Structures are given as C-alpha cells and as structure tokens.
C-alpha cells in the first residue's frame, strides 16, 4: 500500500505511531531499566528514568541466591529438547502429507489441529497421575514430552505448509534424470526444506520457552524452568523490584531476540497457514 504522501503527513504518521509504539513497549523498557537500579531507586517517587547509578549488582544477587543458571538450563533443555523431538517426529509426517497426499490427508491434518484445542486443565489430573505412576513428575524429560505433544500439531502444520510450497515439478525432473529416492531427499528436498524447518524450530522454541501451564503444574524443585522460577517471585521477593526486573530481563531476553527474527513465521504458525 505504498503511496506517495507529503512529508508533513509522513512526519505526523511517524510521530503518532512511535508514540503508541513506545507506550506499548514501555513495560519491557521499564523492566530492563529497573534491573540496573538499586532497590531504593527502583521504588523512588518520582520514578527515575535514566539518571540513576547503573549497577549490575541485581544480576549477581539473583544468580547467587536462586541459582538462576539451573532454571535457565532447564528452560534451554526443555524448550530445545521438545522442539527437536517434535521436529524428528513431524518432518516425516509432514513430508509424506505434502508429497504423497491421500484422500485422508486433509482429515488427518484437521484432526491433529483439533488435539491442539483440548483445554489443558481438562486433562490436568490424568496427566498428573500418569506422571506420578511413570516417575516423570518434576523431570525434564517428562515436561519435554508434554510440550512436544502440545506443540506437535503446530509443528506438523507449519512444516506441511512449507513443504507444500516446494514445486513437485522439480522432483519429477530429478526422477526423469534418474535420481534415486535417497538422492532426491538429500540433494533436492533437504536444501529447499531447510528454511521452513528452521522457522518451525524457531517458533517452537519460543512457544515452549513461554509455556506456563504444564511447566507450573508438573514441576517442583528439580525440573522447574524459568516460567516457574519467575512465578516463585510473586511474593515476597516480588517486592524487590530491581531483583525481580533483573530476573525477568534474563528470562525474556533470549526469546525477545529470537522472536524478532520470527515475526513472519509466527503468523503462519499460529494461524495454521490460514494467513501467510
């Protein structure tokens, strides 16, 4: 919708849009700023915006007192592991649905989508019981499996929409030239599929990292990831704003950075390809 407009109009647009944008971003900015203040400055009235004594002390204290690295490591393992597991299971499935479609492919896809809509709270106790009897409660592997399962429909769908875009004519041409199935997969499909797979991985790490129902309900001390770590700040440590901010900043920073790379994929992934 690029139209030529006057510079004045453009300046006005810019002013309004940036004001609103900064307002929306403000809570995050404020959290990051507060994490560098002392506790006294953090609750100072009137609030101090930039001119305070910048300190890294909060980060050191958070790490020291609560063993932040362990929670971070749990988050990394759980988000990364569940995504990897999901990709390993979903790639063959999406590949076969995209390239060898049958009459039932559409039904299977729709059914997979429907499992995503199962409200977690409806099956909380059964999963809890199963976890106890299988010895999975408060383990990283258990959480990894659950997060993989809740995101598997999204992974399959996303990969499916990407694989669908690979033109089959290329495959046919390769076959004419005598390429074997192995060569076909290795030299033609894989290079074309990698961007789609990478985007899918990115979105799923974000979703798994931020998941806050199962991570809160199925973990205690051992396997708790950052979501649960932050929830433990709700009281009374939450009143120490600077430390809360430091812990929060550390918990969201990796995903903010990943998230900014994945805007486009987010739309495709979360709308199941309905909006591209």
């Amino acid at each position, binding site marked *: *919708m690029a139209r030529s*407009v006057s510079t004045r*109009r453009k300046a006005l*647009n810019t002013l*309004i849009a*940036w004001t609103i944008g900064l307002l*929306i*971003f403000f*809570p*995050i900015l*404020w*959290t990051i700023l*507060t994490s560098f203040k002392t506790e006294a400055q953090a*609750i100072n*009235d009137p*609030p101090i915006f930039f001119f305070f004594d910048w300190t890294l002390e909060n980060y050191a204290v958070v790490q020291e007192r609560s063993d932040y690295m362990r929670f971070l490591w749990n988050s990394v393992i759980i988000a990364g592991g569940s995504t990897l597991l999901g990709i390993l299971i979903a790639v*063959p*499935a999406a*590949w*076969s*649905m995209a390239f060898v479609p*049958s009459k039932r492919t*559409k039904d*299977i896809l*729709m059914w*997979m*989508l429907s*499992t995503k*809509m*199962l*409200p977690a*709270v*409806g*099956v*909380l*106790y*059964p*999963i809890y019981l*199963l976890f106890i009897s299988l010895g999975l409660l408060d383990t990283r592997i258990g959480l990894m499996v659950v997060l993989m399962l809740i995101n*598997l429909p999204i992974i*399959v769908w996303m990969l499916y929409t990407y694989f669908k875009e690979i033109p089959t004519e290329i*495959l*046919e041409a390769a076959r004419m030239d005598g390429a074997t199935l192995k060569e076909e997969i290795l030299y033609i499909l894989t290079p074309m599929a990698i961007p789609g797979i990478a985007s899918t991985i990115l979105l799923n790490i974000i979703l798994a*990292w931020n998941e*806050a129902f199962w991570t*809160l309900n199925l973990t205690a001390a051992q396997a708790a990831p950052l*979501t649960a770590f*932050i*929830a433990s*700040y709700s009281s009374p440590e*939450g009143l120490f704003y600077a430390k*809360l901010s430091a812990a*929060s900043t550390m*918990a969201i920073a990796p995903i*903010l950075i990943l*998230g*900014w790379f994945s805007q486009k994929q987010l739309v495709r992934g979360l*709308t199941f*390809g*309905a909006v591209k």
Partner: protein
Amino acid sequence: MATQQSRTLARYMMAPAVILLLGWMLVPLTMTLFFSFKKYLPLRGDSLENGLEWVGFQNFVRFISSSAFWPSVSTTMIMVGGVLIITVVLGVFLAILLDQPLWGQGPLRILVIAPFFVMPTVTALVWKNMFLDPVNGLFAHLWKFFGLSPVEWLVDYSLGSIIMIVSWQWLPFATLILITAIQSLDSEQLEAAEMDGASAFHRFIHIVLPHLSRAITIVILIQTIFLLSIFAEIFVTTGGAFGTKTLTYLIFQRVIDSQNIGLGSAGGVYAIILANIVAIFLMRIVGKNLDR
C-alpha cells in the same frame, strides 16, 4: 505420482505423529471422563486401587449448581470478550497505522510485537508489582502526581486489570496478523476510491474492513482458544480472588486445591465441550483454506 510403494512408506512416516497424538488425546480424555462419573477425593482415602464409587451424573450436576459456577462463566465471558474487543479494535487501528508511510517502520514494528514474546509469568508479575502496586507501582506514582489517591487495581478493578494485562500480551498477535492481511490489500482500488471522492471513513468501511474480515475472524477464533485457557496471568496476580475466577481456574482449584477429582473432571468435560464448539468454527475456516 504416488506409487503403491511410496504410499506405504508415507503411511509409516506418518505413523509416529498420528499414534502419539492419538494417545495424547485419548488416554487423558478417557481418564477425565472416567473420573467425572466417580467420587474421587484422594485426601479422604479414595484411591484407584481400592476402587472408586460410581456416582452417575452427580458431579456434573454439582459442578453446575455450585455457587462458583455461573460467576466463573460470566468472568470467563467478560475476560475473553473484553480482550477480544480491545485487541481487535486496537489491532486494526495499529495495523493501518503501521502500514502508513512513516520513518523507522522496521524498528517500530519490533517494539509493538515485543510483548507477545514475554513469558506470561513475567508479564503478570511485572504488571502486578511494578505498575499496579498501590504503594510503589508506577500507576500509584502517576496518580499521586495528579493529586489522586492510588487505586488498589488488583482488588477494586481486578478483572479489568487482568483484561488489560492479557490485552497487552495479545495485541501484538492481532496486529501482526492484521498487518500481514492488510499488506495484501490492492492499493489501486483504494486510490481509485479516493479519486472518486470516497472519504477516509468510507474507504475504511467499504474496502479495508471487508478485506480484513477473514483475518479478523481468524484472530478472534485463535485468541478465543488460547484465552479460554488463560492460567498463569491469574495464578500469579490474584490467584482467582476478587472475581477473577475463570472456568479454567475454577477447575484448577477443584482439582489441585480442594483435591476433588471427580468434580474437577466433570468441570473439565464442560471445558472440553466449550472449547470444541469454538474449535469447530475455526476448523471450518482453516479447512476451507486448505482446499485452495
């Protein structure tokens, strides 16, 4: 192009995903359904080993007739409805604004989208303590600055506060999808309408809005699915107190806090039915898209 051999192979490749999801769906669902017809109070000595007493539809009746049920339904509807209205209206506005020619579009978009990537527990805690706290929160400072007495947001306006927090979180999602949709709008059509003398308002009503209608429907349906199961935002802020107990939270309390598994499971069955009603509409739209 598919031979018999590749068909068989395809089936094997699909099998792990299908079997896992089938298990994930059927096993807990069957258990929930089973528990919902049983008296199951683990704290009073009921256990699976000793066998559970069959109580028919008693749990279903009790769940609905409890004094907490209807308030939780209306809380859920107000919360989901409120967030939907805020995010869709502001989302359309923001999408149009961000699509206008302006400086720094890329960085600006990053700022606007950022809240979506903040984990729910951080969102809830930062808002609860650093903004809404009646003593040290930023809003309290602001109110005092204008000579007003600070408000106990999460007590007096608890549901409104949670709606605001959740809207902040989901506005980027709506905006992002609507921007994507608006970019496919034919600019020549708009220019033609402009030349024919259609006002900005009429161009919006007759061209932009119809074009966005599908994307808006998708935003509403997908958000509804996610919003119905909002949990961490309530868990961290009010813990379900002060009229913020949604259906999801009520079920959670029945199962975890009062350890009444039968009753909670009956509630779970209701929640599943409710989610499925929404899901059917969403699936129709997605399904239609699949044919194209």
